[in-house]
């Protein structure tokens, strides 16, 4: 057998393996990634599945009597917040929220609009808070993170927001949520989040930032940034043992 004829199968095998590895990596990303909704614009993904059966009330996700509370300060446009929401949150929900050990509060803070001169964050936080009035805030927030576009690009159009609201699904009045998001009804909630952020973290807030602690008490542990999953599980496990 000549040298070339010996190498040919090796090259074919290596080439095939590279293609398969790339396909597997893409599949692993997609398996928790986005599926387009019926209108083809909004990714509905596995958010409904992740949140299914977990109580929501206003900004809260999880058992109100959970031992620990995690407060999330994030901006819907912030890429790191989106990364955390897509990669870390599902594991925390499955392990701690679904089992009643942890509840999470969402505090939408607008840190990007002032830098870009746009209004995308404001519009998305408003919609989330309006959804909170129907106890579907978390569905909207996670849909917003799943459908992030470039910061300051003006992507949070009326059609985009309506698409997000429509994607929440049964039991949610999308039209009402969009309508309420444009009223002053959500302003107190927006102000409350901003005030809490400044009080607990300071005026130089970077997103995402998290506060963890016993429910009903002061959240003592601060986690800044989209830290790896283990940073959160270590902190939560340590507090649960106390």
């Amino acid at each position, binding site marked *: 057998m000549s040298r070339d004829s010996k190498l040919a199968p090796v090259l074919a095998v290596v080439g095939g*393996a*590279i293609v398969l*590895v790339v396909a*597997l990596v893409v599949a*692993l990303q997609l*398996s*928790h990634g986005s599926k387009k909704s019926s209108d083809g614009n909004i990714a509905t993904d596995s958010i409904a599945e992740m949140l299914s059966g977990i109580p929501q009330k206003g900004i809260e996700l999880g058992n109100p009597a959970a031992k620990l509370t995690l407060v999330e300060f994030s901006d819907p446009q912030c890429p790191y917040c989106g990364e955390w929401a897509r*990669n870390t949150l599902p594991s925390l929900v499955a392990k701690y929220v679904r089992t009643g050990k942890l509840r999470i509060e969402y505090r939408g803070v607008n840190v990007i609009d002032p830098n870009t001169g746009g209004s995308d964050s404001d519009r998305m936080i408003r919609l989330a808070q309006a959804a909170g009035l129907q106890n579907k805030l978390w569905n909207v927030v996670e849909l917003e993170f799943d459908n992030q576009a470039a910061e300051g690009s003006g992507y949070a159009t009326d059609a985009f927001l309506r698409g997000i609201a429509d994607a929440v699904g049964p039991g949610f009045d999308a039209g009402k949520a969009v309508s309420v998001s444009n009223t002053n009804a959500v302003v107190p909630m927006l102000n409350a989040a901003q005030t809490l952020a400044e009080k607990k973290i300071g005026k130089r807030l970077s997103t995402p930032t998290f506060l963890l602690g016993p429910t009903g008490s002061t959240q003592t542990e601060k986690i800044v940034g989209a830290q*790896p999953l283990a940073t959160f*599980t270590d902190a939560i496990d340590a507090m649960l043992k106390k």
Partner: protein
Amino acid sequence: MTERYLRWAVAALALVGAGIAGYLTYTHFKGSPPVCLTSGCEVVQNSRWSKLFGIPVALLGLLTYLSIIASTLIRHPLVKQAGVMLALVALGFNAYLFYIQEHEIGRYCTWCISNEIVSLILAPVAIAWLLFEDGRDQRAVT
């Protein structure tokens, strides 16, 4: 060294890999954390990267290693090539999973690392096996 020894080496390494992947698959379906030298195994097992469209990654690893073992038993050049290709796929995908542990999860699972080491050794041995001519393979080709 002969083709036969390399084939045995491939089968033995794949058997070790199958053992590790089999144990991780067992603990996954049992719902219990694997026995682990660090706290990383449970964190990795509960992470979103432990499943591919709902199928445990460990189960895919087990099936891959069992297929590699089968490829050493079925003496046909195309099957041999498929087995070697799976060994390379195992290496590449394990490298990606190592990256995920390092950058996304922030914790290492000792079983996963063991599996990654097995695939790191298995891949070059499998390539060598492919390069060695097998008399029976040649007869099948001609």
